[in-house]
């Protein structure tokens, strides 16, 4: 039973035409772009930028918990041994989403966390990007009693406190260590040169992260002083190119750039890699599995990270978020996390608890180390075009990303 074409096609054609025009109209006329939650900002950097959310009112009192808490965290930051007691005490069920790099965290936090996420455990190089995009919310530090116990360097650090306004609380910090298989290295390597040594072709692993260029720069700072590198995150074009070239030379030595912490764990365990750069989390997981892993901060120093639990601008569960901040900053929990992960707590009172839980751990993880130790670690920060010394010829992060993707990998 065939129907003449005209009858069928006419209503169809009208519908299609209507749909098409409405689509185009919607696309052209929509006045807000998908994630411009901040007024237009210059790309020069923090000088001249304001934090769009600086004047939002802070919570005055922690109210009743909302029953849920959505957190973006590094792998290993939400272990059951401290999350479960928190859930029992406060009734806030924790949903964790893992992110393996600062870039991922910035991406997930766009649009103020999208109304989905409450907090993110971001490192220094992500914090400013999150802040200036207007994705963080001011925090009332008076509601976090343990804050007073923090080391002064971490109470109001420049990566989470701008003009006296806090946007989160500092969490813990640590180095990116040189990991090695103790069966292949009788004594601990003393220099980062080992991961650039062609002798270990196919057995080296480093993170798949553009910030790794800073690690190369840090090594060049000592090995090639003529380059004049002082800050591995503020590189002039020639310094930047030298670091990129070093990494391009390193490429044949690497079988796999690890994207996920578990990949590095798997690779060391199975002998795919015997030396490389990693986080203390991988080291402690392998040690717990009784694997022959060792780690060291070599003579040239190391890059590192200082993490903050930052509050999302559109956090759907602010009361639970504050309860979490208050909980995670207490000395005992700080000690637990520090030992489990292998990092250094920001709470000065954690040391005693650490030694109770594991003898000697306070010294091992530098919980009471002098400031000189902190100074030897180059903490992650976002490379900007404006260098700290006032000049504007430093290479910005977007070029780090494209160089990493096209020249190194």
């Amino acid at each position, binding site marked *: 039973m065939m129907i003449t074409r005209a009858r069928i096609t006419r209503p169809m054609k009208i519908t299609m035409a209507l749909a098409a025009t409405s689509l185009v109209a919607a696309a052209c006329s929509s006045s807000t772009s*998908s994630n411009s939650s901040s007024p237009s900002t210059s790309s020069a950097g923090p000088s001249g930028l304001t934090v769009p959310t600086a004047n939002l009112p802070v919570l005055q009192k922690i109210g009743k918990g909302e029953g849920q808490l959505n957190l973006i965290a590094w792998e290993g930051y939400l272990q059951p041994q401290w999350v479960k007691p928190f859930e029992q005490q406060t009734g806030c069920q924790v949903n964790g989403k893992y992110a393996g790099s600062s870039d991922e965290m910035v991406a997930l936090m766009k649009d103020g966390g999208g109304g*989905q996420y409450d907090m993110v455990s971001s490192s220094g190089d992500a914090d400013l990007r999150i802040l200036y995009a207007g994705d963080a919310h001011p925090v009332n530090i008076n509601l976090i009693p343990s804050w007073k116990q923090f080391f002064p360097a971490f109470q109001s650090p420049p990566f989470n406190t701008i003009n006296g306004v806090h946007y989160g609380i500092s969490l813990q910090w640590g180095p990116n260590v040189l990991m090695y298989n103790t069966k292949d290295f009788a004594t601990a390597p003393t220099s980062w040169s080992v991961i650039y040594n062609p002798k270990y072709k196919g057995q080296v692993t480093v993170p798949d992260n553009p910030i790794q260029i800073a690690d190369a720069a840090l090594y060049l700072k000592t090995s090639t002083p003529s380059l004049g590198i002082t800050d591995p995150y503020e590189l002039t074009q020639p310094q930047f190119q030298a670091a990129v070239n070093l990494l391009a030379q390193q490429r044949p030595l690497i079988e796999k750039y690890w994207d996920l912490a578990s990949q590095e764990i798997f690779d060391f365990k199975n002998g795919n890699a015997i030396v490389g750069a990693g986080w203390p989390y991988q080291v402690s997981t392998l040690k717990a*599995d009784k694997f022959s892993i060792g780690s060291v901060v070599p003579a040239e120093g190391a890059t590192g990270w200082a993490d903050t639990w930052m509050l999302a601008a559109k956090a759907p569960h602010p009361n639970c978020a504050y309860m979490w901040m208050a909980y995670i900053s207490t000395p005992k929990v700080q000690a637990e996390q520090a030992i489990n992960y292998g990092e250094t707590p920001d709470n000065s009172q954690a040391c005693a608890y650490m030694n109770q839980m594991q003898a000697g751990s306070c010294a091992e993880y530098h919980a009471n180390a002098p400031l000189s130790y902190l100074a030897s670690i180059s903490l992650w920060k976002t490379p900007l075009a404006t260098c700290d010394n006032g000049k504007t010829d430093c290479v910005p992060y977007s070029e780090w990303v494209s160089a990493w993707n096209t020249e190194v990998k």
Partner: protein
Amino acid sequence: MEPKALRVGLRIWVVLVLAFLFIPIILIVLYSFNRSNIESWPIPSFSWHWYNVAFHDPQVRSAFLLSIRVALYATVLAVLLGSAVAFALYKYKFFGSEAISFLLVLPLALPGIITGIALNSFFSFTGIQLGTITIVIGHTTFCIVVVFNNVIARLRRTSGSLAEASSDLGARGWQTLRFVTLPLSATALVSGALLAFALSFDEVIVTVFTAGAQNTLPLWIFGAIRLGQQLPEVNAVVSIVILLTIIPVVLAARLAGAGAVTRSARGVPVGEAGS
């Protein structure tokens, strides 16, 4: 008939292919008994530990339940929408019908990451918050074509005169649908629904982009893979899922008869050669 040598050769080939398909599955089950939480060969020691952990893990339970819910909603929607298109198109060839079937195939034919980021941009563009609803929308979109192809292949096999006869006997449209058309296409609907459910349940790429803070089972598995400390638990969970699905799959295959299920399988439109 085929020569004997060919038949023997084919049998060997089939066995090899089956081995290829199943060795990784066997490994999944094997490693679920691995006591150590880092996977390596050979397995150091065996235990039921991870099954125990999986059963008591509230995250696994909520992820599993969310996956089931999403798959159910997506399947129901896909059945309704897909069969609607099939009923509309099977008799009438008009200018738009080819375009429509082309359109329906797009979500499956285009890589999942594109569907995922397109929907993600769309949701943030229109201000729809990511959540269960957006996951269901994403899954339904690519499940529709699976049902559609199943049903229309089946309907094209039935004679149109049956529906006409029903109307001649005085049935209203709805009664024809209920008493004639639906029973004829029942097996196609069931097998289409089963495949749509399977696609949605194991979907990971589109879900990564359309989910908010909640986890479906594949998302939970991905998180566990990132963490690297509970991989055998993942294997335990997957082994349980495989076990749970053997029965429905066997039942469906028997019920529909391998012929009907395959013809509608995977929602891929196949040329009607010689029929």
